[in-house]
């Protein structure tokens, strides 16, 4: 069984002028202003241990594809099957609660992600060490800088030991030192046999990590295969 299997996936977003028009739309499919076709007929298979780079312009559908694989948003049509626990490095500090301390937030978000108390106990020291935010760990999250909150989120995501990892341009987290550290940690994961979807605009990173690349334009996959060929096609425009 493959890690990710996607068949004829479509994802449309209906846009409304006012929210209340959604309700009649649910029954009649009328009343919207326009349809945004984020993904159109996407078929993709990712095997275990494959590191797939996803490249495309802003708005091409990369994020939508990743969100669907992460189970955050639902496909409009088509089949998606994901085998394994998905960890996503998208929106790192989402789900944190500003009045809880860093420690409480790790337990809280860990439980949202479906972990048991004991599982979190066993990784909490790694997280403390990796996030490296010192005494802030036991202060409320609202006292953090946004970089610190993202570091905490990043640490939880990587130590929760996912089988499939979804990475969306996260190396901009924190300061230079932490960027280096997170880069190393992610590199480690990239080499540990996990299946990874990696969206980036950085050619060097794609070349370094990926053994396959897909190019998305206007919601369609226009290239799937060798990294260098894909990058060349994309950069040609």
């Amino acid at each position, binding site marked *: 069984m493959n890690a990710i299997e996607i068949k004829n996936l479509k994802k449309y977003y209906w846009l409304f002028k006012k929210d209340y028009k959604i309700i009649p739309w649910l029954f009649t499919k009328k009343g919207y202003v326009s349809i945004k076709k984020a993904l159109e007929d996407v078929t993709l298979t990712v095997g275990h241990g494959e590191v797939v780079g996803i490249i495309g312009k802003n708005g091409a559908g990369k994020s939508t594809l990743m969100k669907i694989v992460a*189970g955050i948003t639902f496909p409009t049509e088509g089949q998606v099957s994901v085998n394994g626990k998905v960890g996503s490095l998208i929106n790192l500090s989402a789900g944190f609660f500003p009045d809880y301390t860093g420690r409480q937030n790790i337990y809280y978000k860990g439980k949202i992600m479906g972990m048991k108390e004991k599982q979190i106990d066993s990784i909490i020291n790694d997280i403390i060490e990796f996030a490296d935010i010192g005494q802030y760990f036991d202060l409320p999250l609202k006292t953090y800088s946004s970089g610190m909150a993202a570091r905490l989120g990043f640490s939880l995501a990587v130590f929760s030991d996912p089988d499939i990892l979804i990475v969306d341009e996260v190396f901009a987290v924190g300061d230079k030192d932490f960027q280096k550290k997170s880069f190393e940690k992610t590199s480690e994961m990239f080499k540990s046999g996990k299946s990874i979807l990696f969206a980036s605009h950085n050619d060097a990173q794609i070349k370094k990590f990926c053994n396959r690349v897909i190019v998305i334009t206007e919601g369609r996959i226009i290239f799937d295969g060798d990294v260098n060929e894909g990058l060349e096609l994309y950069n040609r425009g």
Partner: protein
Amino acid sequence: MIRAISFVFNEHKENLYRIWQLGKYHMQKQTIRTSLGIGWIFIHDLIYFAVFTIFRYLMAGSAQVEGMNFIVFLITGLVPWFFMSEVINNGSNAIKMNQAIISSIKFPITVIPTIEVMAIFLKRLFTLLVAFGISIGFGYLSSFRPLLFLYYFFSMLILMILFNLIISAFVAISDDFNQLYLSIVRVIFFSMPIIWSFETITGLPWAIYILKLNPMVYIISGFRDAFVLGNAPDLQYTVYFWVLCLIMFAAGSMIQYRLRKYYSDFI
């Protein structure tokens, strides 16, 4: 329909641990910044009890109601109402207030309303202590029926979970509904025998009949039975209550099953 029901049921069954754990976290959310923490709930309750007691006293004097001291009558009605009103007012925002989770983490969406009900119930356990204290103070210890109480407490929990399954979906997708709903809630409070008794309208049996269609009346009168009166549940009314719960479960499951796909896109 069967698919929706079994989906919602299984999602709950598989996530009991999450419901319990996250319920505990959400319980603290409102009071975590304060010095007294959950103690504030206690103070709120005492003030409410006092205000309603004075109000009722000014309105109708200190005569007995349905054979109970009027303060005990009030409190045994107010306790379940505190639980239910908080679910009605705050719990119904469950989907909306957890939007950050829905739109960024994979999560079993249909259990979110249940988590909020759980949080409210845990938080409100203090209210029960107050009620116990006051009833015992008035010498009603010997009339307390623990089994009956557990039954009605459990029924209240189920009713509120099902209620919130339906309402939180509507509140999430429609602000119009939210406005309408909040204005209706005020009316519902006064339609229930919490600060007044059905005794006062015995001349209007049809009115009592209609008011009793509200399943919350079953819970409130049940609490009075458990605390003071000791009557066993009325068979006909009990059947009505549970059939209504089944219908609510079916309706709520279908609504959530359909709408869960849209929450992360539209809210």
